Every structure is written in C-alpha cells, then in structure tokens.
C-alpha cells in the first residue's frame, strides 16, 4: 500500500467517519443541500445563527469518507464561531485544500487533517462540499435548496 493512502485516511478522518458529530437535521434551521453530481456525494448543511454567532451546525447526507468526515469536522470547527470568523476559516480551508498552509493554522483546528488532499486532486471536491454549503449559508441569509 503506498504510504500516502494512510495520510489521506488518517486517524481524525477515521474518527469522524465512525462517530460523526452534529449529524442529523433539525427543523427550522437555515438549510442548504449540495451535491457533487459526478460522484453522488450529497450533503445537507444547516446553521442556526444568533446575533452574528453560529450557535449550531448540523449536517446529513451520504457519500464517500472524505465528504462525510469533512462535513462532521466542519460542523465542529464552525460551531460557536462568529459569522466573520467562520468565513475566514472557510477561506483558510480552501487554501489548505490547494496545499497552501494558512497563516493561522490553529484556527482550522481538526480541519488541518485535510492538508494531504492536495496530493489527491480528484478528491478536493469531496472535501470541500460541506464547506461550500456552509459558506453559502453564511452569505445567504435566507438559505435555499441549490444543487450544483
């Protein structure tokens, strides 16, 4: 087995695969549903934002390990952050996926484990799907059901 497979499916990712955090949807939250049509990854992300703070993040869906674990990690990292902080973290995450270490790496918390994705370019869209949904929810106050 080439080594980097284990880099991809590392401990943290495996943890989130086995025990996803904040999984399951809650009625009344802002909701966004996104898909990667070519591969069938399918994620719904929800947020509850009060006074500029993300008080809750939920997610549900189906897909590969990278996609599902990343939704779980995202929910944990963004929960409790202000909308502004969260937007910055999401931008950092996109940079990370491209292989660029962000200035403030601590801010990414567990999401840092996706650093190796840039060695697996076809999987970048799996890792970012839930984050794209989260980013869109932050920008769009109403939330909507958009498929890509």
């Amino acid at each position, binding site marked *: 087995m080439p080594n980097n497979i284990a880099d991809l*499916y590392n401990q943290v990712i495996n943890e989130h695969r086995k025990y996803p955090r904040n999984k399951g949807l809650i009625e009344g939250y802002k909701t966004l549903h996104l898909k990667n049509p070519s591969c*069938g990854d399918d994620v719904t992300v929800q947020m509850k934002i009060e006074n500029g703070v993300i008080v809750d993040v939920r997610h549900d869906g189906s*897909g*590969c390990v*990278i996609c599902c674990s990343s939704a779980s990690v995202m929910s944990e990292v963004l929960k409790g952050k202000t909308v502004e902080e969260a937007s910055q973290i999401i931008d950092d995450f996109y940079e990370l996926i491209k292989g660029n270490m962000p200035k403030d790496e601590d801010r990414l918390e567990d999401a840092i484990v996706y650093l190796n994705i840039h060695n697996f370019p076809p999987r970048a869209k*799996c890792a970012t799907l839930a984050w794209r949904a989260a980013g869109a929810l932050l920008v769009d106050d109403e939330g909507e059901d958009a498929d890509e």
Partner: protein
Amino acid sequence: MQSLLNVKKDFPVLENNQDLVYLDTGATALKPKVVIDKINEYYNEYGVNVNRGVYTLSYKATTEYEETRTMCAKFLNALEKEIVFTKGASNGLNMVALGFGMDYIEEGDEIISSELEHHSNILPWMEVAKKKKATLKYIPLDSTGRISVDAFKKVLTKKTKVLAITYVSNVMGYISPLEEIIKIAHENNVIVVVDAAQAVAHMKIDVKALDCDFLCFSAHKMMGPTGFGILYGKYKYLKKMSPVEYGGDMIDIVEKDSCIAKDAPYKFETGTPPVAEAIAFKEAIKYIEAIGYDKIKEHVDELTRYALTKLSKIPGIKIYNPTTEVGIITFNVIKAHPHDVATIFDEHHIALRAGHHCAQLITKWLECVGTLRACIYIYNDYSDIDKFVEALEEAVKYFEEW
C-alpha cells in the same frame, strides 16, 4: 494462459505512462498512434475548412472528410446518404429524439426504453414524452439486470411507437437480444433507436442485418477521436426527420422568409465540423478492422475470464455482473464507498471509473450509491489484471481493518 493480442505499443498514452493500468475504456478508449498521426496530418498538411473553398487544399480536406462517410457506410453496411456526422452518441441520440421523435410521437403514444440506458438515450425521450403527453415505459429487467425478449413483449402495446434501447449496457456489459426484439418491434410498427456507443468497440455492427431504424455511436469509444460520432438512420426516416440546428452548410436555398434545406444527411450537418476528428476516424475503423472483432472478442473474453476467476476468490467485494459479455466488470468493496476505493486504485496508477456512469437508473436498480467499473480492452494484458486484483485486495484489506 492463452496467447493474447500484443498491441500495447500502438498506444502512445501507454508508452508515455509506463505504469498505467488503463481500465476505463467504457468512458473512452485510448487512441492508437495511427489515429493521432492522421489528426496531425490534417493540421500539418491541409488544415483548411471543408465544403467551402474551390482551391486545391480545400478539395483535399473535403475529399478526406467525405471518405469517412464512405468508409462508415461500408463499416456499418449502410448507404452513404444514411450516415450523418455528429458530435457523438449523445448528440446523435438527441437528434433522433428531438428531430424525429418530437414530430412522430403524439399524445397518448408510448415510448419504451430500459433502466440499462445511458442518460443520453433516456432523457431526450423523457423530454419528448413530457412535451407530447406520451408515456415512457421501461422494459422490466430480469434478476441479473438483463433485457429479455419476453420482458419487451410484456410492455409492448398497440400504443407503442418508439423503442429506444442500448445494444450493450455500459454498466452491466450485457448485449441486448436486439435481432429478435427489433423483429417483434417492426411487426408492431415500432421504430427502433439503438444506442451502440459501447457495442461498437466490441462487435461487428451490420445495420441491414440488425434492421434497426436509427443507430448512434461515438468515435472515441472505438479508439477514434473525441467530439465526433455517427448517426445511422434508414433513409426514409432521415428524409422525414427535422434538423435540430439550422445554419451554414445544411441549407440549399435561402430567401428572406423561407429556406430549403439540403437532403439528408447534409441537412443535419451545420457549422464547421470537427474536421480532423472526422478524417482521423477512418484510421480507427481501419485499425479495428485490421485486428478483427473476432480477435478482439477472444482477447477480451480471455482476460475477463482470468479477472473474474481471480475476483471470485476475494471476499469482501460484490460483483454485480458475473455474466458480463464485453469485459465490463462492475463491482464494489462492500465496506467502502466507491470513491474511496477509486483513490486507492489511483495511487496504484490504475484508472477506472467510480460513480453512476451516467446511468443512474441501473445504479438505483442495483440498490447502491455508485459502483466501480473496470473495462478490459485490447491493450490490457494479464499483468494489468494482476495489478488490478492486487490493488483491490489491498483496498478490501484496508477498509476491512479500519
């Protein structure tokens, strides 16, 4: 082990990627050097437009281009005027549904298709059915996922007008029993549209013997260039069929408030075509015919048998089509999502496809989110299969343990 074709050296992609195991022929076949050389010949030696200029180079390009039509007609046992140049199978199938079906289908009519279809042979008909208030019906598949003559008879009614059916399934690798189905369809005045996109790489197609009314395929799946394909139609139907696109080349006479289109096949061909691709397609036909479909079948069958025997010994995987007929093996690692497994294959430089293969209906029928698909073709060898099986064993083990 039986002696196989030895053609790897004909394929520059394999020469330039020595450790590549290419098992994604279902998506597109690799191109032999003769095809690539012909594309370059066009651009280097006479790269001008066709059907326009009266100068020597234009004549040369047009001659080369029209020779493809002649060769395709011979290849399919059709007439030249029955050969329409398209952008590929999807384009051709859309032209038939939207240009012929949209006029031909009336309210209350029935269109029959199957869950084995690629989206390109079902969605255009779904659109026709919706617009014309017709009904789209599906041939019920048997327990292995096959289309049978009896199942076709079950959905056939007096209202059936069109059958849109695949010759070979791009997911299951089954050959549809078309000869008999077409005979029955015609006894019931049903027009038959055949998607031969996968078939053409594996079997001799004789449209006269098959007696299909329309048949489409892409050049790129039979080692020809991308962006080019063939629509065959019986001339009596091509004559009736409306063009979907209007513009230059396809028209005879233009007045301020009317125009007269050329005859088939030219009325379907507007705009500057992919000239190099059309010209180079001849080389793909010559290449495939020089090898011979019987030899291709022997080679693919032997490697498929070899692969299936090895795969049957791996626990933890599911093969969806153990009775595949054209080297397409569709499977999953039971404990893992197909995309996670695909990445492990990718790390081993094994190219194969994961997902729903543009055939969501059969993926749903198989009751899974997606599948992995390994397609065996003439440039694969025993060593490719060994590497594929080895990587799969590692993947099974990897996802078993975590």
